[in-house]
């Protein structure tokens, strides 16, 4: 299909190689299974493929067609058109890792700017060129902390309100390391004091989410202090949009900041590809995994960028490397770079506040529906826990025929939270959608 040779080409080439037919090139392969019948269909023309894929896609119901209050780690935000118009430049998307900096300054400068923007947003010193997603960034934070203490400290304190998928990923990643992972079994509603009590001198890392999985905003100053008192590292997982208004985690003296970058101009796309943000303090830069672009000059005196500190990486250090990451989320990091550049300081701040106001409006309105309740005591950002009069799954089932995705059923991860729905509201949620939800809930009252 995409192979260009004519018959004459093929013959001329075989002659140069000195074999008779292309099949002869495979003679070193055990002949038993050679040229198997795969039982796959014939290829389709582009026109047929598009029509097939359009059909498949039309079977799905999208977040545009539905009224969606789903968040829980992936958010429906507006993406300015300029983002995709840059991503579609094939100089970016059909290049690979910038191994040859002389012909990859576009990619390298974009990475450098990405590092700069994420560092500025989080308040950290350095940021790597990305991890696969929020979950793997968190796992790499644990991995980094573990190696930081030369594998001697075995305790990892994780907040129960760190995204359940992230915690699960930590377990998978660290399975072979014999760690003691604690904190997850605390009451979902526990305070930071309870986490503080778990920190000891065997603790490598204390990690929380900000805003947390329930959307809540806590002050982690004391927690950071407590971790540092035990010389443990302190890590904070962030929602980058929230940092448009909230104090950066550097103010809690975080050693590592991770984040899910999807809200920064990346489509929901059924869960991926997303973007793992990872930043740390300068002192830990050599412990950090992932690629890094650094500023330098070329032979002509021009400012330019190269991948630097490669000696940390697997292709040099091999089994001594802390992480195996190679291909990362380059293009998605570029999306977030363009997105942050377009919004800029004021845009991101306005956006964060808009999310905040909409979520609070929704929470207040929901609290007025008989049987429903939102705890407004603890500050929250664009997501909150809705206590329902019946099991959350029932509410969701009831809402679906109205084309409403009510939220995330928390009992899936927190067995005690049977009646709790995690509701997300962003700038993409119209007031009328919120009002529609309220209307339906009132109509379908359980009282």
């Amino acid at each position: 299909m995409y192979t260009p040779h004519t018959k004459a080409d093929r013959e001329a080439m075989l002659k140069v190689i000195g074999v008779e037919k292309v099949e002869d090139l495979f003679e070193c392969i055990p002949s038993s299974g050679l040229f198997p019948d795969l039982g796959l269909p014939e290829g389709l023309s582009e026109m047929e493929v598009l029509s097939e894929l359009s059909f498949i896609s039309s079977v799905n119901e999208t977040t545009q067609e539905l009224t969606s209050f789903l968040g829980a780690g992936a958010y429906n935000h507006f993406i300015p058109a300029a983002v995709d118009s840059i991503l579609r430049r094939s100089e970016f998307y059909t290049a690979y890792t910038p191994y040859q900096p002389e012909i990859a300054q576009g990619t390298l400068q974009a990475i450098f700017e990405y590092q700069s923007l994420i560092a500025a947003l989080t308040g950290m010193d350095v940021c790597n060129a990305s991890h696969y997603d929020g979950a793997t960034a968190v796992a790499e934070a644990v991995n980094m902390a573990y190696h930081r203490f030369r594998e001697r400290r075995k305790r990892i304190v994780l907040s129960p309100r760190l995204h359940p998928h992230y915690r699960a990923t930590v377990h998978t990643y660290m399975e072979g390391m014999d760690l003691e992972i604690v904190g997850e079994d605390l009451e979902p509603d526990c305070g930071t004091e309870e986490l503080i009590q778990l920190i000891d001198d065997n603790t490598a890392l204390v990690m929380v989410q900000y805003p947390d999985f329930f959307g809540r905003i806590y002050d982690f100053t004391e927690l950071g202090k407590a971790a540092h008192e035990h010389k443990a590292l302190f890590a904070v997982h962030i929602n980058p949009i929230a940092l448009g208004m909230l104090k950066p985690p550097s103010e809690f003296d975080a050693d590592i900041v991770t984040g899910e970058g999807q809200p920064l101009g990346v489509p929901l796309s059924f869960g991926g590809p997303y973007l793992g943000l990872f930043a740390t303090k300068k002192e830990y830069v050599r412990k950090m995994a992932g690629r890094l672009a650094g500023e330098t000059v070329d032979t002509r005196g021009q400012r330019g960028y190269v991948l630097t500190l490669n000696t940390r990486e697997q292709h040099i250090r091999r089994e001594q490397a802390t992480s195996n990451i190679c291909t990362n989320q380059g293009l998605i990091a570029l999306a977030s770079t363009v997105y942050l550049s377009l919004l800029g300081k004021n845009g991101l701040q306005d956006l964060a506040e808009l999310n905040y106001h909409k979520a609070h409006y929704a929470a207040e309105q929901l609290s007025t529906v008989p049987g429903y309740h939102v705890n407004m005591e603890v500050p929250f950002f664009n997501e909150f826990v809705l206590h329902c009069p019946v099991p959350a799954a029932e509410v969701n089932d009831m809402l679906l025929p109205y084309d409403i995705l009510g939220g995330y059923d928390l009992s899936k991860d927190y067995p005690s939270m049977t009646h709790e729905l995690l509701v997300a509201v962003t700038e993409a949620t119209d007031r009328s959608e919120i009002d529609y939800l309220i209307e339906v809930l009132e109509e379908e009252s359980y009282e």
Partner: protein
Amino acid sequence: MSEPTIFELSKPQRKGVRFPRPDVPESALPEGFLRAELPLPEVSENEVVRHFTRISQFNHAVDIGFYPLGSCTMKYNPKINEETARLPGFSQLHPLQPEVTVQGALGLMYETQKWLEAISGLDAISLQPAAGAHGELTGVLIIRAYHRSRGDNQRVKMLVPDSAHGTNPASSAMSGMEMVELPSDERGNVDLEALKTECDETLAGLMITNPNTLGLFDENIEEASRLVHEAGGLVYGDGANLNALLGICRPAENGIDVMHFNLHKTFSTPHGGGGPGSGPVGVVEKLKPFLPAPMVAITKEGDQDTPPLYGFVTPEQTIGRVKAFHGHFGMVVRAFTYMLSLGENGLRDVAMTAVLNANYLQALVKDTYHIPYERLCMHEFVAEGAWDDAPEVRALDVSKRIIDFGFHPPTNYFPLIVPEALMIEPTETETKETLDRFAETLIQIAKEAREQPELLKEAPHEAPFGRLDEVKAAKDLILKTELPEDYGK
């Protein structure tokens, strides 16, 4: 040529994209939690677009020209893939939507699993891993879990040939295994004698790349697999080089038990300047229970009138999650589009043409560049970029000089077992004319290496940038734009 950074283009109060004023009453902001400064740039949309458009032109890319970066399979990325992945019915799905609302997406994932099974001969596929290395970690964790499930806790030794990609040893180490390096024999195959001596009761498995990183089909693959299996170990296949084998032979039939696919190599999803990739993992029957969660399965069979119902399931003895949600769906859509476009014969044609192109190029240059393991190659080959009679010149200099001719250089200094390696992978989407021009260029550069070595040492001459000072970068360690104190206040 060089371009200011986005921070340098900033001016306070300038605005790019704006948002509407709230259509709801405003709530009090949470005092004590608000940040004092937000040091982000302030740039107009016009200037942002220009900035990124301009720097993009500094890049070489597949859409600009030949990109024979060995081991990376820089084939043409069909434009239709970019369209299908952007269909709203795919791009606007939340990963946690009820399954009944995403049957199209789940069906597509299921079908992709089936295609990859047919191609590899393996029995089950997980689409979760985000890239090749991620697939490796997943696979090694599966091997570990398998042994532990049988009480074989002592099986912690993972054999990795010296020709392997750096991710292989790193992945073994990350999973808590002990890595033992295996030498290659004089034909570039895994050394069977060395392998035998490691086949004991601590053996967890062998990680093998086939075709290997020399671009050679490992002639010992079946024997090696037999030995490992006999010793109670499992064989992990690094599928980075699957492009050579599509429809030619099925790795499972050579004895591979676990393997990752690189959708961003073999299945034409774009490399994105470094990613995202996608690294599905396939396994033989007995390893199915250990696959990461969740996987897509048919949860209710269909019949003539109703389609089957697809849903997520958790394998019984799963190693767990390796990331949030369920894989790089956007990449899966692109790869599925590609597979549908090619079909069975098209896939086979890919492999045959990729191997034809590599052998043709090898034949054209082998008298000029030493090929340490000279055999018919598969989809790529490794030459040495150095000559005794050009002592100053190194492979890196050859690469930099290649840039002057409008090509991307081959992979340098990998595999480690070849000194001054130039690893050349043309891929199947290149024309004979391009291969001819590239061979001529290599031959001319070999001549220049003797006659005008400074042409190579000072190259590139025609690129937007000259060689960059890597030592300075590592020394100064400037990893972000340094902002003035009051920026963003």
